[in-house]
């Protein structure tokens, strides 16, 4: 049982040293945070551009309805048969000026008070027709506005829907990016923390320096090997030399583990 525990500790620390070779500076977290901010800024910028495009489109629609569609439509609406009939009747009577009337009866001007009574009746009729003309024009305005507003609303709704769809798509893509970035940032933070804890543990054990020496030695060997290969020396000879050194290291590790197990 004790042996098993020792083996577990042994392998844990060997793997610790090996995994300690990676480098994860704190600046990676800073960089991830800068990237986060940039993503948020880019998203705001994209959305603002989209909104500006659709704001301009809405402006164009309102201009079109006010300056092109409405005049064209009204020119057709005033020709509407039902409206025309109502308007002409009311207009014909309501434009009569009572002052222009002279009433005669059997070829002679109508005497008072009959003249006054007839004129009063005509004025009442004209007033009625003027009221009727007002109602006709009011009816025209209501019906025309209904169509104008319906066209404006329909065109604007279509653009509003498309704008919302585009914004949703952009936000969705940025959400994917932010989720991915959060996972990467979380991983980097954990790696930086792990590295810090490893360094602290190794420092307390007094082996950090040795671990760094090992890393440097490996790098040195790698450089040397690379130099030898580039110099054109016999590849088999170099390989044999490297293999021999590796075997020696493995033998040393085996001996150390054996010693610990025996204690």
């Amino acid at each position, binding site marked *: 049982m004790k042996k098993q525990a020792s083996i577990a500790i042994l392998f844990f620390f060997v793997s610790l040293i090996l995994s300690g070779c990676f480098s994860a500076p704190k600046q990676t977290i800073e960089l991830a945070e800068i990237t986060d901010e940039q993503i948020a800024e880019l998203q705001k910028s994209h959305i603002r551009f989209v909104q500006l495009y659709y704001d301009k*489109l809405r402006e164009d629609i309102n201009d079109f309805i006010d300056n092109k569609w409405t005049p064209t439509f009204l020119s057709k609406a005033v020709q509407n048969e039902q409206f025309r009939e109502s308007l002409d009747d009311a207009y014909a009577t309501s434009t009569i000026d009572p002052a222009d009337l002279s009433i005669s009866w059997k070829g002679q001007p109508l005497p008072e008070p009959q003249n006054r009574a007839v004129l009063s009746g005509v004025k009442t009729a004209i007033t009625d027709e003027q009221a009727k003309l007002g109602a006709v024009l009011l009816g025209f305005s209501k019906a025309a506005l209904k169509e104008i507003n319906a066209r404006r609303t329909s065109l604007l709704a279509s653009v509003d829907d498309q704008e919302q769809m585009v914004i949703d798509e952009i936000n969705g893509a940025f959400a994917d990016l932010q989720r991915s970035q959060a996972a990467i940032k*979380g991983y980097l933070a954990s790696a930086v923390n792990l590295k810090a804890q490893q360094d602290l543990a190794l420092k307390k054990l007094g082996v950090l320096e040795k671990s760094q020496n090992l890393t440097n030695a490996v790098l040195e060997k790698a450089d040397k090997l690379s130099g030898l290969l580039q110099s054109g020396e016999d590849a088999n000879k170099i390989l044999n030399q490297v293999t021999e050194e590796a075997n020696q290291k493995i033998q040393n590790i085996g001996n150390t583990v054996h010693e*610990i197990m025996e204690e």
Partner: protein
Amino acid sequence: MSNYDFDFSDEAKQTDDELSGDIQKLQGLSEEQLQKLLPNRVDQDKLREIIRAVNAATSENEKKAALMQQLQTVPGVVKDVVKKVISGSII
């Protein structure tokens, strides 16, 4: 309903037909333009799977770091064993 409730829907329709070219230009982006301009979304299942894998690695690192922190407080006897393990013979 008064006698003057006019119906101008035919006139509106005629106006739409006459100005259809202008109306078309005010419809925003076409389907084809949208396809070209909108970002291509990643496969959501694949993305979830990858993020899950990265989060698992993060969790593993956090556990290791916590363990490492605890090991810094273990008694000297363990340290001695470890020191032997990672003594000069390995290096």
